[in-house]
């Protein structure tokens, strides 16, 4: 029942024994990378520094529904037997809090300069297909426009990406609708598919190939490739949700005064969870942080959200003065005007906004409702 994915014929695939994964991570550390991967914290699978595969959520899985996230024990020892949690990789490439400018008082006034911080070198372990797509979306925003964010750019250039192909899907996933997964196609250095006996590993870059060559790995057998195919196909069959993107741009922009927005507004708390967990949301604000003597000032950029009341404050009034207008801004930007601005959708179908919304608002449902009622 192999899916016959033509990509499988192109990529070189080797077999990485489970025990060798730690060796791989060790090689990365030797090269100066800090390895970031999934680990359990406060009953969720988050992304944090991991010292070894012991830190990975071995034998755990997640069950996700609108407004619900629970960890459950698996009946096997899979290291990557879950999907995505409240963290995304944007917290490492586009940090939640960072200094963008330092000003120091001088005799004549001020010396204003870039903060002299060395950019960290991260190795991301366990990047899913939707997340590769999200990173590509943020690349377009931060590094491929007229102005480039130097913080994002240097962290991004330094990042080593080990992707993991999903072998299951959560109820809130809809990557197939956004054409972003579940198969990892590009944008990684190495990609793993987990089998009970080891990982089928594909090389996606020269950097990845060089690293892999330092381990003496044999090629994956045809049987192993078939089992990897089947495992990846399970993820496809488990996808429940759909979002029809064929007309979503005009559907939203032609219905900006639709009563459905009022209905959503009675439920939405404007809590900003969706924007915090979304791997592509990029809104931020800046603030001044003087030291006690005010001789040295840091200008700090922090994540912000279009759901915050003051986000659109101007000249004595707030432009988006209601939950209705703020929710409308978020959804129309994510699914419609993002395309006008950056040439792609802002949504990658990861489903986080659905899972982490405290009242369980599901944007796939909202779009379908808008379509039906017009």
């Amino acid at each position, binding site marked *: 029942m192999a899916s016959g994915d033509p990509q499988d014929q192109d990529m070189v695939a080797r077999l990485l024994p489970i025990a060798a994964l730690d060796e791989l991570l060790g090689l990365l550390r030797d090269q100066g990378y800090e390895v970031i991967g999934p680990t359990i914290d406060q009953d969720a699978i988050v992304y944090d520094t991991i010292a070894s595969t012991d830190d990975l959520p071995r034998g755990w899985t997640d069950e996700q529904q609108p407004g619900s996230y629970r960890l459950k024990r698996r009946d096997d020892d899979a290291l990557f037997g879950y999907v995505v949690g409240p963290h995304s990789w944007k917290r490492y490439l586009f940090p939640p809090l960072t200094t963008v400018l330092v000003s120091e008082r001088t005799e004549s006034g001020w010396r204003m300069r870039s903060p002299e911080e060395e950019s960290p070198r991260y190795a991301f372990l366990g990047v899913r297909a939707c997340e590769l797509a999200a990173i590509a979306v943020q690349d377009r925003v931060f590094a491929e426009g007229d102005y480039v964010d130097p913080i994002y750019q240097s962290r991004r250039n330094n990042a080593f990406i080990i992707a993991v192909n999903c072998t299951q899907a959560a109820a809130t996933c809809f990557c197939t609708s956004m054409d972003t997964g579940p198969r990892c196609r590009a944008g990684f250095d190495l990609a793993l598919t987990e089998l009970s006996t080891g990982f089928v590993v594909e090389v996606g870059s020269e950097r990845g190939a060089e690293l892999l060559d330092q381990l003496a790995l044999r090629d994956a057998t045809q049987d192993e490739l078939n089992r990897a195919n089947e495992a990846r196909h399970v993820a496809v069959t488990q996808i429940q949700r759909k979002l029809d993107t064929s007309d979503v741009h005009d559907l939203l922009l032609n219905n900006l005064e639709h009563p459905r927005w009022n209905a959503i507004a009675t439920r939405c708390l404007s809590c900003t969870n969706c924007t915090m967990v979304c791997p592509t949301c990029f809104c931020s604000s800046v*603030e001044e942080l003087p030291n006690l003597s005010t001789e040295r000032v840091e200008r700090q950029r922090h994540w912000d959200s279009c759901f915050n009341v003051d986000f659109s404050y*101007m000249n004595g009034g707030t432009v988006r003065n209601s939950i209705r207008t703020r929710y409308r801004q978020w959804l129309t930007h994510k699914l419609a005007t993002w395309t006008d601005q950056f040439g792609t959708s802002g949504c990658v179908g990861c489903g986080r906004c659905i899972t982490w919304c405290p009242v369980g608002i599901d944007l796939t449902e909202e779009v379908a409702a808008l379509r039906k009622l017009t």
Partner: protein
Amino acid sequence: MDGLRLGEILRELSFTSSLSDSARARIGEIATLACFPVGSVLFREGGGNPNFFLIREGRVGLDMNVPGRGPVRILTLGPGDMVGWSALIGSGEMTTSAMALENTEVIVCPGKKLMELSASNHEIGYQFMNRVAMALAHRLTSTRLQLLDLFEDPPPVLSAMRGESRGER
């Protein structure tokens, strides 16, 4: 006043240019041209005024008297504008004083004759009142814009928290 010249003037004036030829002709029969030199008064607030005016050239200022502040100019009008619509509508008591701010040439229509014309010829009456209604609606919107005080400086919003000024970061 020469009827032909008046007809020409009414044809060019924006207030009357969209009326039908016959409407203009009938109005032309009862209207006259007049000149108000700079500083002269067309009518006074609270007083009577039998005439409806259309400004052809010049400028007219409308003032309202506010005890303690004296006369306050609330509007200036120019070519094409109507002045003295209270002669047609309402009790005939003027709500403002009107003064010529420059040498001003106006078309004078006695209100009584205009109303008699409208009553006897409903078609012309309808056209004319339609123009008056549109001009009043326009003036109402303009007055509302003045009322909104759009250029008012909001008082400076200073907050005590560090850097947390609303909207200025």
